[in-house]
Structures are given as structure tokens and as C-alpha cells.
């Protein structure tokens, strides 16, 4: 599987995992949070967010729970599972290595 959007998809997964690593969030909050932190550079559309969430859940990295949100409505909150936390560490390390490598190439070639 070497589709061109693999990296992008992998990146989205990483962003989601990182975003919910501090506290459980629901889909809307995850999208908002990624937008705020990235100073609105990264806009996650629902069309890619929810399939990614469902995929991560089916892969066992995250788990979900229904509970009221800030406005009192029932929302599906996602949180990391224990294997998910390990997965996040692994992907973070991978990302560091990759961005470091890209940086090296950009700087010295």
C-alpha cells in the first residue's frame, strides 16, 4: 500500500491521537482543537475526520464513550486505549525522525 495520501492519512491519525492524549474529546472538539492549535492552518473536514476516528477505534487504538458535552448534549467522546498510548509514542518518534530527516535534506542539499 503506497498511495500518495498515505502520509497525509498517517499524519491525521497522529494528530487525532495527540489531540485526545490529554483528555477525551468528541469529534467536533477534535476538529476545533486541531484548527486552534495550528492557528487555522490545518482544517480537518468531517469527511476525513469521522472515517479516521472509526478506523482508529476499529483498530483498537482509541475507545469511545457517550456522555454529555459542555452544552449538555450527548456526544461520543474518544480517548486513547493503553495500546493507543504506545502507538502514539511510536508514531511520534517516527514523525520526529521523518521531520528531522526532511529538515536535514532541506538544509544541506
Amino acid at each position, binding site marked *: 500500500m503506497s498511495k500518495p495520501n498515505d502520509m497525509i492519512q498517517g499524519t491525521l491519525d497522529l494528530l487525532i491521537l495527540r489531540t485526545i492524549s490529554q483528555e477525551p474529546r468528541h469529534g467536533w472538539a477534535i476538529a476545533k482543537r486541531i484548527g486552534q492549535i495550528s492557528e487555522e492552518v490545518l482544517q480537518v473536514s468531517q*469527511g476525513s475526520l469521522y472515517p479516521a476516528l472509526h478506523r482508529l477505534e476499529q483498530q483498537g487504538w482509541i*475507545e469511545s464513550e457517550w456522555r454529555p458535552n459542555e452544552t449538555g*448534549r450527548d456526544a461520543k467522546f474518544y480517548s486513547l486505549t493503553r*495500546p493507543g498510548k504506545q502507538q502514539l509514542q511510536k508514531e511520534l518518534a517516527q514523525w520526529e525522525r521523518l521531520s528531522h530527516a526532511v529538515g536535514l535534506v532541506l538544509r544541506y542539499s
Partner: protein
Amino acid sequence: MRRYFSIFLLRMRSLFRRGAVERELEKELRLHFDELRAEFRSQGFNAKDAALAARRAMGGVAQAAEECRDQRRTAFWDRAAQDLNYSMRALRGDPMFTFLGIASLALGIGANTLMFSVVQSILLRPLPYYKPAQLISINEVSQRMPTGVVLPPEFANWRQESHTLSGLAAFNDEQFTLTGTHDAQHLAGATVNAGFFRTLGVTPALGRAFSVSEDGPNPERVAILSDQLWRSQFSADRNLVGHTIVLNSVGYTVVGVLPRNFRFSGQWQPDVYLPGGFSGPALWNAPRMAWLRVMGRLRDGVTMTQAERELQAINDRHSAEIPAPYRRGFGDRAFDVMPLQQRLVGDLRPALLVLWGAVALLLLLTCSNLAALQLARAFTRTSEFAIRLALGGDRKRLVQLLLTENLLLASVGAALGVAGAYAALPAVRTLNMLHLTAPNDLSIDPVVLLGALALTLGSAILFGLGPALAVLALTPNQAMKSGAQSIAGGTWSDRARTTLVAVQVGFALTLVLSAGLLLKSAAHILSNPLGMQPANLVVARFRVDPHRYATDERKAVLGQQIMERIQRIPGVESAALTNALPLGGYSMGASIVFKGRPVPPPGVRPGAPIVAMTPDYLRTLESPVLAGRGIERRDRHGSVLVAIVNHSFAQHFFPNANPIGKYFRWGADGAPWTEIVGIVADVRHSGPDADPEPEIFVPFAQVPGNVLGVAIRSAQPLKILAPAIRKAFREVDKTMPVFNIATMESRISMRMESRRIELIVIGCFSVLAFFLAVTGVYGVINYTVTRRTREFGVKLALGASPFRITTEVMRRGLLLAAGGLLPGLLLSYAAARYLRSLLYKVTPEDWQLYAGAALLLLIAIAVASLIPARRASRTDPLRALRWE
């Protein structure tokens, strides 16, 4: 690990709680939409514009939802469920095909597995001994001694000089009376050599085997018991070894008890083993020579032929030692060596192999039938597939659908077949196939079951899928045209199908005829007058110790005592002692000479069995006296010697005269004359299927002989009578064993058992073959009709009468049947000749039966082809033509 478990739970939830999962997805996306809309509102949009903008920002919600669903990975199962649903509808829509398919599979798998397992458990299962393939049976046969005989001195020579055999075992069967337990017991026993158990590779569970020193010319009084005897008579006492038991009034020390799983051969299971004195040197002057049966164990790497050659050489070296009388008596003997297993299975081998062949053939016919059914069905569906393809159906999806349908059919049939085989197993066990295996040894072999499953399921799926795949390989355009229809039915496959059906019909005729012959034989036998009334008749055997009752006087007193006790049992109407119980054969016979007729020389005098009895014997059996009188109390010792003869005797020796009042003499020349005083109906002493012989009945009072049986007429059930009979004998002499207490009816049915088994087996086969043949014809005709729908449509449109179409189709069915019936008749005749020995008053040339069997098949086939024929005659011309 936990991760996979939670994944599994999620999948299960997605599969089985689909509604809830869907609702949650919708709620989740709805929330996102609402938040988005609220955001636009806060930016100053009015309610309507905010909703619109939110919807635009959201993008394709349905696509996103579908993509979320894809993440659940349940698509395969969803489709499978759909296919299953569709398959069930399709199978329900074609009930005839479904029924025939499932029935063929179930019968094919069930019946074949069962029969295969029976044959296999008898023929192939190794004997329960150490390395059974090394064991051989050694015998020496001659024309005069066709059953063969090996004498102890020969055995001794082999034992001492053979290098090809690592061990030799000899045994001789004996009967014993065990006393000192509650009732005296009649036991089957064997005398064996010291190496017997070691050669078979059996170690006693308790104690030890015999030593060579115990097995010398004067064997020690030691015994080894079977596990069964140890449990039933000695309550499994582990301290029994070293104690003494009494056999034939002599004490023997128990030295061992055999393991529970030890079996001897087939029906004959000795309970006690004694050393026979077969380990000593070769002595030709011993007063008593046992006739041995011998088994040997081949050394590693030695062939049976090498062993035989060596034994022959040993015999040749010692041939001069054999005394002349033995050599003359036995004639020229030749070695008869074979694997032990083969000896034990014996004559049944060819019969079982025939059975096995029949099973294999039936299995193949089942598969071919399934193939024909499936081909016909696949053909009818080619246009359906063509349309599906033309409408853009997914080829892979169509194959999956077909596979589902075939798997569904196959698994229902297979499940029924397997369940049927297991359900029938207890019944087959009670048949206890000719006592060849211990009943519990008979089980369904998993390998056989898997084989039958694989074969039938494989053919069902292969033939169901094959033609469809051929259609699917075409472009929709080709498929819509008639091209598809020629794929499913080429000339070659047509001819193959026709031939197969002919074979099926021929085979079915053979089996139906064989069953008919056996059934007719059984009917003849059952209608044979037995010469007695078996209901309410109980017989028992007992054994009189010749040492305790040596004189005629003592025997007479014993007889009186037994009769007194037996007659005192409540409910006994009459009772008698005899030396020949019905179905028990005879124990005495003599050559006879008639008074006033020329006396032939000793070698060629006629002979007859002699039944000695107490006066009430014939009354107890309810055998009618046809003329003259029966034996009465006045026929005492010292009065005129009298005899009653049976009807056969009268007919044979006095064809044109009245035998009553005539005299004859039996035994030695110069014996006193005996007067014939009555004629009695023929009692079938040797069984319902054995023709009565001329017999002579004499009173015990005048002809003292060895009593061995008692016949009792009583309406009491056996459950009450048996203990009473045992008690009566115990009171007379507690060392006298009484055994084989049974109702006459049960003895007759036991006598009929092997016939019953043959009838059941052939009957089952013939029903199966009949079914296969009829469905085979149905399958082919049905297929033909489907293929020619258009033709029939045209004919009907042009004015052909439906009746003409019906007869045309049926004619084809009957022609097909006739093609199989003609060779089938020849095959049947061959089979009938093969079965000749099992027939009773039925000849293989019983043409009425042939006509009947053929007619039965023809009628069934006519009915089977009537169904598609009617369908053909009802073809709607318009619909048929629209197919173009």
C-alpha cells in the same frame, strides 16, 4: 491481546447490533452539523443561512457515513447474509430439486459412511495384539482333513527348530465346569502352550503367564482367567491369584488374570486357560493327541513364505517319525499359512469385499446423480445469470452467490447424512455383524466420514458451480444468446449422463432382485412347519459329569431327580429330558437294519440320528403324533423295545407301506429288534432352514444315553423360569452346570440372524439404489425437458396436443430405463447365482421375481418422468419463444 479482544467485541457489535451502531453514527454526525450551524449563527448568519452554510461546509455526509461503515469490515458478512437469504428463497422456489439434492447427499453420506465403517471395522482393523501384522496362522490340511490338523509333536519340532519365528502359540478348545461359586458354571476354555500369551504379546493384568516347566508332559494344575470371568464370578478380587478354583472337580491354582481388552477370536471367547502340555519334547506315543490350532510370530524381516518353507523342511526331516496310523488317517497334508487376521475374518472376506465394492459404486452413483441434478439446474439458470450480467451484475458477486447456494444445500444434506449415520449406529451394533467384532469396536471412522463428505460435497459444489462459471466467462451479449445454453449440454455430457443413468437402473434392478430373492427365501423358511409350538417353550442345556454319573442306574436316578424338581416349578405344564434339543443338532446316531429286509454290508447301511427322551418330550414340544402312539410310561427298561419315527423316516424307508408294527435294529449286529409304534411330525432339529432328516425317537428308560437338555412348556416368562431352573439343578447336584437357558422363539430368531442381517443389508442397498436410479432418470428427463422448452413451445404452437408431448417425454424416460434394464437383468442373474447358497427353495431362475423387480422399477421410473413430462406439455408457447 486485550486490543484484539476489544476489536473482536466491536466487530460483533457491528454485526449483531447493527441498528444501534447506525443510530450512533447518525447522532455523532448530527452533533457535528449542529455545532457547525451554531458557529455560523454566532458569526451573524440567520437560522436558514447558517443551516445552508453548515451543510455546504460539511460536504457529503452520506459518503462519510459510508466510509465510516467500511471501517467496520463487516461487508463480507453482510453480503454473505444477503446471499444466504437469497439462496434459501431460491431453494424454496425449486422444492423438487432441493428435496432430491438433500436426500441424495444425506443418503450418500449417511449410508455409505455407515457401510464403509462396518466393512472397515471388520476387514481392516488390526487385531488387538502386539504388532499384529507379524502374526500368522499355521495349519496343515489334506483332502481327508479339510479343516486341518496340527499334532503336538509337530508343534514341538517347530518350536525347537524354527529360526524364522520368534514365537509359537498353540491352543485347543475345551469345556469346563466351574464349581465352588454360587452356581456351577459351564465355561468355554482352552489349553495353551507356555509361550501362547508371549507370542500374542499379551501380559496378564494380574499375576503371570504360564512357565515352560508348568507346561511339561504332565501339566501343572494352574489356570489363567479372563477378565470377564474374574469380574463375574470372583467379584474382581485382586487377591485371587494364588487361590484354588475347581474345574471339572479338580483344583487349579490361579496364576494370572488377563487384561480387560484381551479378546480371542470373534465369537469364541474362552474364560479359562490351562497349560496343555505342549512345551515338552515331541512324543508320538502319548495316549491322547490334542488337535492343535497354531499361530506364529514372524521375526523381523522374515516373510510368510520363508517361514512356511522352513516349517516344511522341519516336517520333512521328521516325517519318518510319524506313526503309520496318523499318516494314513490324515492323508497327504499341505501347509496352509496365512496372516492371522485373514484367518479370523475367514470366508467373509469376499462377501465383505463385494459389499465394499457396492458401497464405493453407490457413492459414485450418488455423486453422478448430484452432478446430473446440478447440471440441469445450472442450465435452467443460465438465462437468469445472463440477465444479471447484462444489467451490470458483479461476476465475483454472482459466483459468491452460487457458492453460497451450493454450500447451503450441501451442508444441510451432509448434516442430515452424518446425523443419520450416527443415529443408525446403535441399530447396526445390535445387528452385531455376524459376531465378528466386539460390538463396541464398531464405530464410524472419522477418516471415512471425511472422505464421504469431501467426495459428495465436492461433487455437489463442483457440478453446481462449473456450468455457471462457464456462463459467467461469456460476455453478457454472448450469454443472452443461445450460446450459453449449449455450454451446459454438449453431446458428450449427454451421452455420459445417459450411460450413468443406465448403469444406475441396472444396478438398482440387481439389488432389488437380490433383496427379492432373499425375502422370498425368508418367507419360505418362516412358513416352514417347525413340527413344534415354539411359543411358551423354554429349553436349557446341562452337563453331566461322566465320572460322577458313570453307570446307567446313576444316570437314570439323576434324570428322575431332575424331572421331579423341574415339574415342581410353579407354572410348568410339562417337561422332558432329551439328548437332542430342537435347533441344537443331535448327539447320537446309528446305522439301521430292518427286519425282513436284506442286510447291506456295514459300510453302506442307512443311518439315522437317534433322539433319546423322557416320555413327555413330544407332548412338551407339542409335536403331533401322526399315527400310532407316542412313548408312554409302560415303555420301561425290560419291556419290548419301542421307537417312534418321524414323518421323513416313514416316507424315506417305507414309501408305500405303514411302518407301524415293523421292526428294526440299530447299533451292533445282534442287537435286539425295536418295534416302530408311532409316527410323529417332522421336528426341525437342525433349524427352520434345514430340511428334516429321518429321525428315530426312543425312550430313555430303554436306551440309556447322556442327557444334555431339558425342554419345559410353561406360560411363565423366562425371567421367572430361569432362576427356578437353576435352583432346581442346584438342589439336585450343585456341581452340575446348567446353561443356555432360552426360549425356543429366541433360539429360532438367533438361528435366523445371519439371514436377517443379509436381508437388511441388501434391502438397504436396494432401497438406496432404487432411489438413485429413479432420481437419476428424473434428473436427466427434467434436464432434457428444460433444454427443449423452446422446441416444445414451437410444437405446441403448431398444434401438437399436450398429450403427445407428454408421451414423447415419457417414452424417452422409459427408453432410458430399458437401456439399463436389459444389462441389469444379466447382472441380476449373475448376482442371483452368486447368492445361491443363501437361497432357500428359490432358484436363481425365478423369472417371476425378475419380471416383478423390472416392472417395479419401470413403474417408478414412469412416475418419475411423468413430472417433467407434464411440465413439458404445459409449456407456454409464448414464453418459450420469447426466450430467443
